C-alpha cells in the first residue's frame, strides 16, 4: 500500500495499461506513478535515433512522444471526457483512417515545386510564401489532431490521467499567461465546471445548468452552497483547480454519497479525504478505500467510504 501525505496528485491512482498495434503485433503501453512506460521497448531513445536515421518509428515510441508533447496542452481538457457517463471511444482503426485521410491533403492541392519561367516578382514570392506557410500550418494542425486521436485511443484510463497531468502542469501558475500572453484561467474554470456539474447532478440530482462554479484561489478547500428554489436554484461551488487532478482524475469526486473536496492523505488503495455530505455543511475527514473499477472500466478506480 502506498500512503503519502501531500504526495503527487496521482498517488491515489493505480497503474493502467493499453495495448497498441505496433509493428507486427500489439504491445502494452503502461502508465504508472505519473510515468508512461513501454515494456516492449527496452530502449526507446535508441529507437528514436534509428528512426531519425531513416528507420521506421515504432508506434509505441510515437505515442510516448505524443504523450509528452501534450502533458500541458489545455485542449486535452476541452476534448477529453467529463465524467464516466461521457466516454470518448476511439479505436486504432480510427487513428489509422485519420492518418490516411490527413496524408490525403487539407484542401490545399499538393503540387510539386513550381517551375518559374522568369524570376518571381515580389507579389508571386509573397503568394508562394503564404502558401507554404499555410501548408506548414495545415500540416501542424493535422498532426495535432492525429496526436489527440491517438491519445484518446489509449482509453479512458489514460484520457483521465492525461487530464490530471495537464491540470498539474498549470495549477500552480494560474496567474501566468500562456505562451501567447492569454490567461489560462478561463480554460481551467470551464474544465472544472464541465466536470463538476455532472458530479453535482449525481450527488444532489440538481440540473447541471444550475451549478455555478468558480476557482477557489485562497487557502482552504473552498465552499459549496445551495441557494434558491425551482428554476432559481443554484449550487454555487468554489474549488481550487487542484481538485480536478487530486480528486476528479483519481476517481474520488463522489465517494460514498459524499462530495470529496480535498485529499488529506493520498494513497492507493486507501486514502484520507475531506468530504461534504451536503451543501452548506463543513467537510469531514473520511477514510476511503479503493477497488478496481467496474467491469469494462478496470482503469477507473471505485472508492468507498
Amino acid at each position, binding site marked *: 500500500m502506498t500512503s503519502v501525505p501531500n504526495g503527487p496528485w496521482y498517488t491515489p491512482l493505480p497503474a493502467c495499461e493499453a495495448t497498441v498495434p505496433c509493428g507486427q503485433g500489439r504491445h502494452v503501453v503502461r502508465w504508472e506513478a505519473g510515468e508512461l512506460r513501454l515494456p516492449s521497448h527496452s530502449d526507446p531513445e535508441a529507437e528514436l535515433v534509428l528512426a531519425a536515421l531513416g528507420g521506421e518509428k515504432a508506434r509505441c515510441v510515437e505515442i510516448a512522444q505524443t504523450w509528452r508533447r501534450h502533458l500541458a496542452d489545455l*485542449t486535452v481538457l476541452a476534448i477529453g471526457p467529463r465524467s464516466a457517463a461521457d466516454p470518448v471511444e*476511439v479505436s486504432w482503426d480510427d487513428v489509422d483512417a485519420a492518418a490516411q485521410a490527413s496524408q490525403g491533403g487539407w484542401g490545399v492541392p499538393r503540387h510539386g515545386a513550381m517551375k518559374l519561367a522568369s524570376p518571381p516578382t515580389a507579389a508571386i514570392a509573397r503568394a508562394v510564401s503564404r502558401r507554404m506557410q499555410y501548408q506548414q500550418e495545415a500540416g501542424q494542425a493535422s498532426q495535432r489532431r492525429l496526436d489527440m486521436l491517438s491519445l484518446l485511443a489509449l482509453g479512458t484510463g489514460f484520457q483521465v490521467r492525461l487530464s490530471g497531468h495537464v491540470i498539474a502542469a498549470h495549477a500552480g501558475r494560474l496567474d501566468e499567461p500562456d505562451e501567447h500572453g492569454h490567461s489560462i484561467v478561463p480554460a481551467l474554470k470551464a474544465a472544472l465546471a464541465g466536470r463538476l*456539474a455532472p458530479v453535482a447532478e449525481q450527488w444532489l440530482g440538481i440540473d447541471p445548468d444550475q451549478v455555478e462554479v468558480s476557482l477557489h484561489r485562497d487557502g482552504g478547500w473552498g465552499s459549496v452552497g445551495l441557494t434558491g428554489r425551482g428554476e432559481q436554484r443554484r449550487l454555487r461551488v468554489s474549488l481550487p483547480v487542484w481538485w480536478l487532478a487530486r480528486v476528479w482524475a483519481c476517481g474520488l469526486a463522489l465517494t460514498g454519497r459524499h462530495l470529496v473536496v480535498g485529499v488529506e492523505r493520498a494513497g492507493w488503495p486507501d486514502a484520507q479525504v475531506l468530504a461534504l455530505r451536503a451543501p452548506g455543511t463543513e467537510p469531514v475527514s473520511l477514510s476511503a478505500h479503493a477497488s478496481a473499477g467496474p467491469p469494462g472500466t478496470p482503469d477507473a478506480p471505485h472508492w468507498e467510504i
Partner: protein
Amino acid sequence: MDREGAETYLRLLAEAAMRGSLMPAAEPGPPGTSRMMVVAHALTTVGALDPLVAEEILDDFRLAVSVRLLRSDPVQSPGQPVTAAQWISQGRAVPHRRPPAPRPPQDEPPEDDAVQSRPDRFVPVGLTVPFRAGVVSGELCLMSFAQTSSGARFIAAWEVSTPELESRLGRQHPGLIPFDLFTVTDDRGGRYQLDHTPGGDLEWPNEISLRPPPAEGIRWLDVAPPYRQPVRVDLRPPGGYGGAGSPPVRGVTGGSSPGGDAVQVSDIKLSPGEHLLVMLAERLLSWTPGFPHGGRPAGPPIGPWRAMAAGFGDIIAALEAADVLSPLSPVPARLATLCASLDLNGHGIAVPPTHDLPEPWLSLLAHYQRRKPDPAQMRDGYAALAASLPELDGIRLTLLGLQHTRGSSALHVLAQGQTPEPRPGPLDIDLSFPLSLWLRDSGGRWHAGRPDRCHRAGLESAIRLRLMPPLTRPADRVEVLAGGRSAEVRARLPLHWRYPS
C-alpha cells in the same frame, strides 16, 4: 472590459452544449454550434475576445463533440455520426493561436504626400448629362463630387436604355455605361478620364472615379458626353471658399454642413455592448421585409436572422459577463420588444419588453405592422448632397446623394476615419460602418439606412445605404440622425429632387 469573463462565458457555453443542454437546433454541425458562433462573434465584435481565442474554442468544441460521434447511435445522438477521416479534416486547418493575420489588402490610397495633405473637397452637383452612344442612350445623373486622399469621384446615378440589352442586363449594368466616350476637361485645359471605381462593385455603378485627381484650385469641370455639348460642374462650394457654405470641419472644402440650428449634436454614452445590441436591432429592423405582396405579410425573418435572434439571450449574458453591458441597461428590454413585435420567438432575453422604444424604431415597426403596401410609388429621381456631419466616434460622415430608383431608395455616404477591424461572422454586422443612420422624411416617417454596398480604400469607406422602407414621396426636406457610441447628430437638410427624363 473583462476579457477573462468573456472567454470564460464562451467556454462555459461550450460545456453546456457538450452536456446537450443547448437545444438541438436544425443546423449543420454539432448541436449548439450556431449559438456558440453567434456569441463568439458578438464578443469579438466588441473587442472583449481575441478572434483567435474564439476560433480556438469553437474548433476544440467541434472536435470534442464530433469525436463523441465516432461511435454514436444515429437514432439516439443529436448529431450525425462522423468517421475518423471526417474528424481529422474538419475545423480550421491552422494550429492554435498563431499570430494575427495582417489586415486584408485594401485599395491603397495614393501615397503622394501632396495629395495626402490636400484638404478634402465635397461639392453637391445635381446635374443630368444625357448621352447617346450607338444603340445605348441614357442619362448620367451627377449627385455630388468628392475629392479626398483616396482620389476624386462623382457620386452618380445612371439611366441607361438599350432595346436589345435592357431586358437582359438591367438598366444600370456598368457594362452598358460608355465611360470611355465621355470627355472631362477643367478650366485650365486639363483632361480627365471617367471610370468605374477600381476595386468597386460591378453591381454598384454609383461611384465614378475621375483620373487624375483635379488640382486644388480647379474651379469647374466640363463633362461632355459623346457628340454633345458639355455640362459644366462648378467645383466651388456654395457660397465660395471660406464663405457661408464653408465647412465646419477643418481640412474640408465644400461639403457644407447645415448651419445654425440645422445641426444638433447630443452626447450619449452607449457601452460597447449596448452599441452592438443597437446595431443588431437596427439590422433586424432594416432587414425585415416589407409587405409588398398584395398586402400580405412577406413572412417572418428566417434562416440566419432567426438563428441570430435565438442567440440574443446568450449574447446579452455574454456581454454582461464581459462587463461591456450593464445589467441595468434599457437596451435588452427594447430588443425584447422588437423581437415580440416581429414575431421572433425563442430569443431568450430574460428582461421583459418595454414600451420605451426609440422613435425611429417605433416608426419602422408601425410601417411593418400596417401590413399593406404603400399606395403610391415615388418617381425615379435623385437629390444632390454634400453635407459633412460632425465627427462621430472618430468617423467623419459626409452625405453625398440621395437616390430613388425603381421603388428602392439609397443614401450615398463617405465614412472617413479609423473603423474597427472587419469581423466576419453570423451576426452580419458591418464594422466598416459602425454607426446608426436614420432619415426622417417630411411626412415624419423614419427610414433606416442599411449598409448595402461598401468600397473601402485606406481609411475611407464609400457606402451605399439602402433605406428601409423606401421613400414614397420626394421630400423637400429630410432630417438625418446619425448615432455612434458617444454622440448622435441630427441634421436637417433641404433637398432638390431632379428627375431623369
